[in-house]
């Protein structure tokens, strides 16, 4: 009997400890990711001297954030000044993010344009209301992998089968090297693919500007095979997405988010040095050595839309690109997928640059 009492007491203690650990408050955990995930950024701070509270606002990100997400994270400061309690949610993939928005778990998400349009194709009632980031991607190779022809049998890493980077590469190869067959591997995360490139486990990959600069600094034999930022500037990479009814239900919240995002983007161009100092607050993993060079490229390619992006030409180009790539069925139109009404209202308020 005593032995069973001891066993029961131990089991009860274990359960209590487990519950206590689970109930303990903590900042949002970094989402699961493939090799070598970057450290999760700090959670948005509470307002020091908050104006009248406007409540919590959840903003969803489709992966572990990187440098290109920095302005949208710095926009949290703008939202905090407006009285919001910002709660960022970092999900593992764009698909999870889209599903969270569809299920009303997150009112606003930042999704890749492809994931957004795919979900719309399946009947999800989503709209894109502003652009987050423009196209900043490049295709790079290492050593003997200099041209598209050199990709024959080479290990070419992409984010996933449905990644925009893969589609851009496929479109380029279809046009210029249709018979070349690389060995495609899937490695989620530009940073992880850059690491794999440095270690020599892959021969080519698509990377964001920040990782391009890092690779150029580390590898003497890096070859820039294509700059999609230059050749496909109208391809919208990531957009702010909401459920359609949210636009009517809570337009003021959405306008505040767009306004905060635009203000953060504009501060980047007006005060790039200040941006460098503010970035580590929400993105501690920033590489300070290469940051100035990266920011110059961001300015050159206008990666952060100062007027919210979503131009008519870009809307049409983005849809047509995916349709021509065979990834989207015909039938989606810019009018159905995109809604500029809130963005236009914000631009009327703060002016167009």
């Amino acid at each position, binding site marked *: 009997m005593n032995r069973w009492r001891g066993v029961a007491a131990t089991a009860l203690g274990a359960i209590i400890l487990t519950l206590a650990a689970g109930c303990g408050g903590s900042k949002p955990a970094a989402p699961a990711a*493939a*090799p*070598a995930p970057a450290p999760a950024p700090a959670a948005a701070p509470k307002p020091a001297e908050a104006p009248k509270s406007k409540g919590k606002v959840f903003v969803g990100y489709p992966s572990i954030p990187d440098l290109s997400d920095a302005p949208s994270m710095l926009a949290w400061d703008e939202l905090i000044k407006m009285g919001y309690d910002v709660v960022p949610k970092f999900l593992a*993939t*764009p*698909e999870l993010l*889209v*599903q969270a928005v*569809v*299920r009303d778990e997150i009112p606003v998400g930042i999704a890749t344009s492809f*994931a957004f349009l*795919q*979900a719309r*194709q*399946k*009947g*999800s009632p989503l709209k894109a209301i502003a652009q987050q980031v423009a196209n900043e991607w490049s295709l790079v190779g290492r050593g003997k992998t200099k041209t598209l022809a050199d990709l024959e049998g080479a*290990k070419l*890493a992409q984010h*996933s*089968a*449905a*990644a925009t980077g893969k589609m851009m590469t496929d479109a380029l190869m279809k046009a210029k090297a249709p018979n070349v067959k690389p*060995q*495609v*591997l*899937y*490695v989620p995360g530009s940073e992880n693919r850059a690491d*794999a490139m440095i*270690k020599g*486990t*892959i021969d080519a990959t698509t990377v964001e500007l920040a990782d391009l600069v890092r690779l150029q600094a580390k590898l003497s034999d890096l070859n820039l095979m294509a700059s999609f930022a230059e050749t496909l500037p109208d391809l919208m990479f990531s957009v702010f997405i909401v459920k359609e009814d949210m636009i009517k239900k809570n337009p003021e919240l959405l306008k505040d988010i767009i306004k905060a995002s635009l203000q953060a983007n504009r501060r980047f161009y007006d005060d790039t040095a200040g941006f460098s100092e503010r970035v580590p607050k929400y993105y501690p993993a920033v590489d300070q050595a290469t940051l100035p060079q990266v920011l110059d490229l961001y300015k050159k390619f206008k990666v952060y839309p100062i007027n919210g992006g979503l131009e008519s030409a870009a809307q049409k180009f983005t849809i047509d690109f995916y349709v021509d790539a065979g990834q989207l069925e015909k039938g989606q139109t810019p009018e159905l997928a995109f809604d500029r009404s809130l963005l236009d209202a914000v631009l009327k308020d703060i002016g167009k640059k």
Partner: protein
Amino acid sequence: MQTAAAQGLPHTRPRRRRRVSPALVRTISVIAFLTVWQIAGSYSDGLSIPTLSNTVRAWWKLALNGELLQALAASLQATLLGFGFAGLFGMTAGLLTGWYQWLEESLDIYWSLLLVLPMMALAPIIIVVFGFSLAARVIIVFLFAVVVIVVNTATGVRQVDHALVDMARSFGANGRQLFFRILLPAAMPGAVAGLRLGLGRSFAGMVAAEMLVSSVGMGNLVTHYASRFEPEYVFAAVITTVAVAIGVMHSMRLLERRFVAWKTADRG
């Protein structure tokens, strides 16, 4: 015993107890499950739970265009290689660990560690060392399967009746005879149970590895269609994987009956 009539009670026929066939119960439960699935899918948002009918259509398309067979072949390659190595290593290590107490005491902590370790946490390290290759996938499958094989085989050895061992020794059996005539047959039930469990874990490891490090196989099929919001194809791939795993594990049962027929015969 008096009849009902003799007791003055109304006369009734004895009622026969109807025995419901287990096969009928199983069939009805499967039909009920499939019906609930179809209904749930029709109320879903289209991004998560597909209907049964869409899943069947998706499976058919994948089967016809060869994608399913190609993915299955790639997956089975990694699974069978990983499981094969795990089986060989696991049974050898299990037999030795079970027989030599000093070895058990030395290695037990490592088996316990591997039992509780989330294997996918090791995946990034495996990728760094072995790259994005078949070797990496095989190693992940191996790690998923090996520990249960070792532990079950060792348990099988420890449960060998020492009276048999003593008897064999008293009749002059040498070490080799002891091992092949007494130890191995007696430990077989535990070892085969471990192999069956290991096989199931091999399939789990295979899918997990392919979702992480590969552009081939069933895991990749799942990731590919999940990223395109096509859950019917995801379900089709998962169901195929499960069906193949069950089929292979059923084959293991036949193996079990062959090698431990004496054990199953004991149960009569």
